[in-house]
């Protein structure tokens, strides 16, 4: 069952979600940078949860690439374990989050462009 009202609400939710994506990814990038400076297993788990939530929500809002890259980064963080990882592992996650950031920026830009159509 769909209705114009429900479709409009879905579109509004998707727009709001897309506009918040860049900031959300930046927070994850900041969390990773903090971990690189000072390893903290609890903070790493927080980063993993943040990525997990993004992976779970992205596709539901029409952003499959967000889910895909967030999931990839989540699995990388989960594989780090409890102890300080080697810099190469962190660099790999950093690269994945950079891609995620670019996808988030593109999604937000598309949402803004949609406003202008």
């Amino acid at each position: 069952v769909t209705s114009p009202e429900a479709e409009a609400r879905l579109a509004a939710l998707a727009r709001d979600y897309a506009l918040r994506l860049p900031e959300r990814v930046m927070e994850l990038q900041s969390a990773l940078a903090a971990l690189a400076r000072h390893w903290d297993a609890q903070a790493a788990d927080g980063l993993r949860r943040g990525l997990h939530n993004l992976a779970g929500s992205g596709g539901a809002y029409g952003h499959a690439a967000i889910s895909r890259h967030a999931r990839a980064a989540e699995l990388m963080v989960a594989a780090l374990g409890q102890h300080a990882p080697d810099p190469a592992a962190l660099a790999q996650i950093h690269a994945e989050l950079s891609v995620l950031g670019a996808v988030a920026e593109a999604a937000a830009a598309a949402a803004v462009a949609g406003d202008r159509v």
Partner: protein
Amino acid sequence: MARELKHILYVEDEPDIRTIAELALATLGGYRLEVCDSGLAALARLEHARPDLVLLDVMMPGIDGVQTLERLRALPHGRELPVVFMTAKAQPPELAQYRALGALDVITKPFDPLTLAAQVQAIWDRHHGGTP
């Protein structure tokens, strides 16, 4: 006679996922939906609420979905309560674990909000004698 699915309790910690699931299940699906943001909140709600079905996230802070289901099964009216997990953690060993715990089925995240209600209804029908 087949039992009808009307009332769903949905347990999810992530606000963005809760919001879109509410739209999918209540607005589009027409179900009476109650939402809890944690396993403990759901267990407290289930002291009084009698939903037809529980949709349960797996990875949540506090007690996770698996622990929530284990505790739910210990409630007097929780033994037979149908539960469906909604999770991105859906590798074969995890699916086997969920089913061993007595979950009806698993819906993988991310879900499609336009088809989620139909997906839930299809699971319900398979297990409660409705139209498949």
